């Protein structure tokens, strides 16, 4: 039998606990949910890019597995450089366009496309062809926007090894879904730049500092930013003078698309395109140790 005093005490305890739990901002919760999923991977090859994107996403069960009706979605391609499509410095505009269309078809309420660029943002958006591709969809639900300088916030990095606190771009964290669309490229310090490094495009601060401990920094960043789907554009890859290239000699056409709900798994497969074992890439290894996905491709279920 519950006594009156006991009842009051229990009520107070519950209220305190709820108060404490409620006062912890949701953003600080480590998004470890992804680690619980099965390690799955879809790889497709084809020359018709929109078709290729659709096939690859369909292999993972279709966009409806990732985007539910009335959700907000952020699509994060690499638009880092003032380079035209054929130089393979930025995600192919048709990949971006098709993914945005798939999100809309899955019933997304709003799809935003953005990237914190390295060259002048206006030039990058135009030269990459991505601005035109998104505008061509001509839907009020899909937009490409420049970063809003007001929307960066300093957040704690729980369990961070290189970083304890960093500036993040809130719209990327607050959207219901984040779809990561990197392009596979050579990078002189991290060897390759793939999905994990692409999410450097939604952080603030002096990003140059991160290169001092690039692998752990990337793992730290990715521990805070959870992406629901990673789709690596390897339709053409940059094998030297990355990450911005500028010479056609350094571009290889591979017509390949790699997709996985787990960022590190997608990165691990992409590394093999360049002739590396996933374990050879420090960033991928660090991500794996941080529980961001399976990198032993033998253990990954190919769809």
């Amino acid at each position, binding site marked *: 039998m519950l006594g009156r005093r006991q009842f009051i005490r229990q009520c107070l305890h519950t209220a305190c606990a709820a108060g404490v739990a409620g006062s912890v901002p949701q953003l600080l919760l480590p998004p470890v949910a992804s680690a619980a999923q099965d390690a799955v991977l879809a790889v497709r090859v084809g020359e018709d890019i929109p078709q290729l994107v659709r096939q690859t996403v369909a292999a993972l069960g279709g966009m409806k597995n990732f985007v539910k009706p009335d959700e907000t979605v952020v699509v994060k391609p690499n638009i880092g450089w003032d380079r035209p499509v054929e130089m393979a410095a930025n995600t192919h505009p048709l990949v971006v366009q098709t993914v945005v269309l798939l999100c809309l078809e899955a019933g997304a309420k709003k799809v935003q496309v953005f990237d914190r660029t390295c060259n002048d943002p206006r*030039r990058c958006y135009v030269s990459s062809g991505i601005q035109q591709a998104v505008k061509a969809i001509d839907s009020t639900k899909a937009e490409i926007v420049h970063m809003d300088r007001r929307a960066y916030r300093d957040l704690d990095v729980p369990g961070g090894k290189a970083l304890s606190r960093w500036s993040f771009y809130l719209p990327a964290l607050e959207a219901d879904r984040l779809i990561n669309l990197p392009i596979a490229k050579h990078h002189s310090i991290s060897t390759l730049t793939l999905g994990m490094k692409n999410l450097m495009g939604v952080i603030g601060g002096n990003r140059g500092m991160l*290169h*001092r401990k690039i692998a752990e920094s990337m793992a730290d960043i990715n521990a805070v930013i959870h992406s629901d789907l990673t789709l690596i554009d390897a339709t053409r890859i940059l094998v030297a*003078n990355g990450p911005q290239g*500028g010479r056609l000699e350094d571009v290889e056409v591979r017509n390949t698309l790699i997709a996985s709900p787990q960022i590190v798994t997608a990165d691990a497969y992409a590394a093999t395109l360049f002739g590396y074992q996933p374990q050879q890439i420090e960033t991928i290894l660090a991500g794996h140790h941080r529980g961001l996905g399976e990198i032993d491709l033998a253990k990954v279920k190919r769809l």
Partner: protein
Amino acid sequence: MISVNRKLRLAVQLISLLGFLWLFLQTEYRGTDELAYPVSLLFRLDPLALLAAFFAPGESNLFLLWPALLLLGLTVVLGRFFCSWFCPLGALLDLLGGPFRRQQLNFIGWPKLKYYLLVVLTLAALCGLQLFGLFDPLSIFLRSLTLVINPVWNLLANGLFDWLYQAELPLVSPVADRVYPFFRDFLLAFRQPVFLLGLFTAAVLLVLVLLERLQPRFWCRNLCPLGALLGVCSRHSLLQRVPQTDCADCRFCSSRCRMGASGTQAVHSAECIRCLDCLEFCPHQRIEFNFGTRSTDKFDLSRRSLLTASVGGVLLAPLAAAAPLSTKSRNDLIRPPGAVIEEEFLRRCIRCGECMKVCIGGALHPDLLRGGAFSLWSPVLVARLGYCEYDCTLCGQVCPTGAIRLLQVKEKRKTKIGLAVIDKNRCLPFAQGEECLVCEEHCPTGKKAIVFERRKVLVGSDPQELLQPRVLTELCIGCGICETRCPVAGQSAILIVSEGETRTPQRLL
């Protein structure tokens, strides 16, 4: 009662000021490599820019400046109308100076100063030292706009919008967030502009505005060399006022005319800026402007003063040249890509600030002393603050005098404006034994001008393999993105120096 003419002039003055402000806002990358509008129209209209280009060595593209010839021609017909109808600095002084204006003070002989100044500047330019830009009212206007007014406006507006965004005030904040995109897209800069020499430039503008307290249009009456040049052309212009002096029974014009043009001191035909205000304020309706009358006034410039001014102008040039060449003793004078050789550059550049406004990377800043004592306000690239975008040719597109040549993108990519050198005492892989490759990552030349070398180094007593950057002199174009992005705090560990620039190939390492 306001007469139709005065209303018309005020409307034209306002519209042209707004027009120039609109062109100013368009002086920016808007999604196409070529600017859609002739944004530097103001300087293509500028006879002083024409003079500067005319006296400069090298080939002058006078096609760029034909509107200035047109303006001179029109002035011969209509008189010094530009000053009251179109000059944006004049409009700004009328607008901002209004509250400061008091009873006119009389400065006997001062209006002549501007002619002497014009003589000094012209002869100095003829002899090799071009200083028109320092005193050109149009340069003063655009410079103030670029370096002072626009940055301040952006700070204020963005500060307000940011505050409302964060404070989330009921009613007000939602409205502010609604109108913000319009401001962001059309009225505010893409990125907060910041410039060196802002305070100094602001002080100059402030002085000109405060001088309004002594006399309306103090600057225009007494100092403006463009006013002087237009005044000279206006001297025999077809459109003249009748009468040209105060009437014997009424001295009203002397106290009301914003230029003091009808006083006994002045040459009316040259001082009158055809603002037509006197048509309205004359209590006796005696004034008319017509094309028939010839002015009989003579310039009363003393020969002795003219001679002194001429000698002064001629002597200024060697005086400036007698200083050691700054390019001999320093290497931080980085000019925009397409800049002609330094001697010609200084003779062409009229310090208008268009290139600094349009620079997409925020790299161009007004110079103080890098290029010598007379390089004031000319553009220099300060790579720590911004870099030259690889595929951008905007500065050459806006330069009105050909000081910066218009380059095609292909040519631009190959134009060296300097060379990156690594400061090994501060560069992380050399000084700290830590890997860092930001400069290499950002280097835009297709085959990178910064490469890595894997070296075995001792960090303490610990042998380590490190990637260390090296600059390839033949590939580096000195764009400066490495210096801008170098993550080392304060001064960069990789610096752009002026060695090996394309325009002076003999200055090699």
